[in-house]
């Protein structure tokens, strides 16, 4: 998995088509999905400062 693409997804920088593809990958790959959920949770901790 391309790291830059994960970051783009986390920050909402993917266009609609790329995001749909990525979200399909999340469905197919539970560990990636878990990683992204945990990282999003972590990012919310920054905004809670």
């Amino acid at each position, binding site marked *: 998995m391309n790291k830059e693409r994960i970051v783009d997804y986390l920050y909402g920088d993917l266009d609609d088509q790329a995001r749909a593809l990525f979200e399909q990958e999340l469905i197919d790959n539970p560990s990636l999905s*878990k*990683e992204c959920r*945990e*990282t999003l*949770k972590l990012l919310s901790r920054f*905004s809670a400062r």
Partner: protein
Amino acid sequence: MDQWGKRVYNFARRYANDDHFANEVVQQTFIQAFEKLDQLKDPTKLQSGLYRIASNNCISQGRRLARRRQLEENGLIHTPDPANPSQVVERKELRDMVLKVLQMIPPEQRQVIIMKEYEGLKFREIAGILEASENTIKARMYYGLDAKRKIMIQNKLNKDLYYE
């Protein structure tokens, strides 16, 4: 300039989680910025110029402190106890915990996280400041967040990160 002083201070404070460190970095940054005044006159270059100088100073100040710590551990120099012996590192607050874990991340990744999450800069701007490609900056962001997430989970610092 006061506004920039605060921004540089906040950047350095988050980098090291230490007031004294941050004040040293601010002082060094403005001395060096003054020396490069000609280059920083252009307002479009002021932000990137100051952050670049501050980033470099954070790294060099961090190295100086690490060397000093090493000398202290080896008994070669001695630092007096602080005036207030009850002074302890602030804990429990979420903000402090997040900052603490940030200190465990490699400097290059830490800089990117601070610039993105605390300074609100765009990846493109961070790439300009740190003179790296945008993809490199995003990769550093990824590895930094990944390291932080793992540290928090390993140390059971944030139950909310558990899903299973």
